[in-house]
């Protein structure tokens, strides 16, 4: 452990950059960077990658000092993996133990980057599929402890519930980023958020107890972060 960094959360470290509070994860693919992030190297050569909260909803949640229910041993289903900016940090966290992340992405271009990322990291299972239809990738995904979802489309809460029905273990956690504009461009964001939360609480596929909701501004405008735990069978 370097002088500059100290543990912040399982697999996440805090330090300073230009005098400001800054989070890091231990680079699981030493020698390579993913999106232009800064590397800090300690005395024994271990690399730490800075995590930009503006580029990552999950990073913003950590930055806002929310307790994030993700541990290095988690099995994670990541919906809306994009080109792997955040997935790479999740992979760093999971690499400290034996966690694994199932990363689902639907667009070709980011998927190509994601595959190249998975080639360098042994705990990412890349899946080229549609997150709104979990039955499509069910043959590849085992039951998971955590679902992280960041998809910019309508019915975000319903998509999370449907995936939870198929994959989320009893007592497993959902970490959800809701983008108001994606749900409905014309509606007031507050109204959108309230409706999505209601869906999470009562849905035929799965229901959740909300642990925390938080505005992701200034890192992400009109985005809300939600942390929830899956209710036991009724």
């Amino acid at each position: 452990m370097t002088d500059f960094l100290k543990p912040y959360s399982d697999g996440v470290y805090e330090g300073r950059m230009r005098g400001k509070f800054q989070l890091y994860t231990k680079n699981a693919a030493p020698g390579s960077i993913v999106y232009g992030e800064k590397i800090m190297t300690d005395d024994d050569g271990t690399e730490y990658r800075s995590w930009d909260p503006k580029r990552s909803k999950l990073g913003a949640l950590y930055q806002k000092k929310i307790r994030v229910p993700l541990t290095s041993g988690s099995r994670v289903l990541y919906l809306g993996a994009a080109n792997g900016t955040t997935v790479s940090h999740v992979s760093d966290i999971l690499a400290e133990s034996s966690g694994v992340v199932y990363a689902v992405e639907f667009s070709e271009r980011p998927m190509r980057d994601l595959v190249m990322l998975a080639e360098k990291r042994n705990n990412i299972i890349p899946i080229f599929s549609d997150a709104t239809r979990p039955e499509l990738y069910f043959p590849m995904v085992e039951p998971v402890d955590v679902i992280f979802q960041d998809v910019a489309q309508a019915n975000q809460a319903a998509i999370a519930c449907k995936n939870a029905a198929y994959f989320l273990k009893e007592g497993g956690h959902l970490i959800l980023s809701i983008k108001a504009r994606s749900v409905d461009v014309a509606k007031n964001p507050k109204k959108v958020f309230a409706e999505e939360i209601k869906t999470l609480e009562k849905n035929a596929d799965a229901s959740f107890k909300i642990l925390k909701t938080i505005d992701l501004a200034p890192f992400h405008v009109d985005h809300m972060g939600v942390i929830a735990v899956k209710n036991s069978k009724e």
Partner: protein
Amino acid sequence: MSDSEKSKNFSAWFGSVTYGGDFSLSEKPLISTSSELSDQLISTLSSSQNIRLISSLKPVFKEEKPDYRALAKEAGLADTDAEYVSTLREIAIQTARKQLSASMTEDKKVIQAVEALDDLNETINHLTERLTEWYSAYYPELDLPGEAYVRFVSEIPESASQSLMGAPATHEDLLLLQSFADDILSLYERKAAVESFIEMKMKETAPNLSQLAGVVLGARLLSMAGGLKHLAAMPSGSIQVMGAEKAMVKHLRSNAPSPKHGTIFSHPILNTAPFRLRGKIARSFAAAVSLSARTDYYSGTFNPKIESDLNTKINRIKQASSQKEVKE
């Protein structure tokens, strides 16, 4: 496999799984290389029967979940948890690569070409403007439209200065200007090549859409929808207003009128129609576009009836309107 109504099976990456109160391995894979396994996984993933089976098991999965690691170990594909992850990862990577390689379908090539065409148009305009500005110092009186101007500069004989107030051009000035003009002409050629590429691909991939909307508009609609599959899946009301997103947002947020048409307006059937019939005609045209896209996506064969039906419908709209006028 099982006679019981409750017993069902589905395929996962490591083999077949049967559910009958709990999950058990019913079939091991007979193959073992990751390339073979990924080929098999691709067919599993696209099997609509398997997808249906999984969907029908959702109520079961809500309550209990299969232990893939144990089942894969039983299938002989992994001895440890670490091996489970590494084997699956290798197969998943190969699967994704093959899927990505196959995803560049002909309609996607049309989309790429349409985007390149937009860039070429922008670039050509930009550089033509620069050339005009540059050369006008030498020949301000020259007044030709776009490509003709560029062609003129590319072909000027060095001796000729036809200008009364232009600067005399030196040998170097002219050389530079001419080669700059040549570059622009080459971009004009490229533009034409991209256009015929689009035309060729469109007629192959989307014969009905090409016939109905024309190659250019058809390609643009394809591009905006994100592919033939997406265009085929789109409600015709969305096709009607695609490209009028700003007006639509304005409409939803305030009392602005709902847009009657978006990109499809560039079609002569609409832009030459009488103003008050445009809404109706746009609705019929969008429906025919949707039908064309669906025909192209699902059958791929040309059906002349789509266009003739549309013409009949539009004639009826126009007649009804003129009769109404007569009455009034």
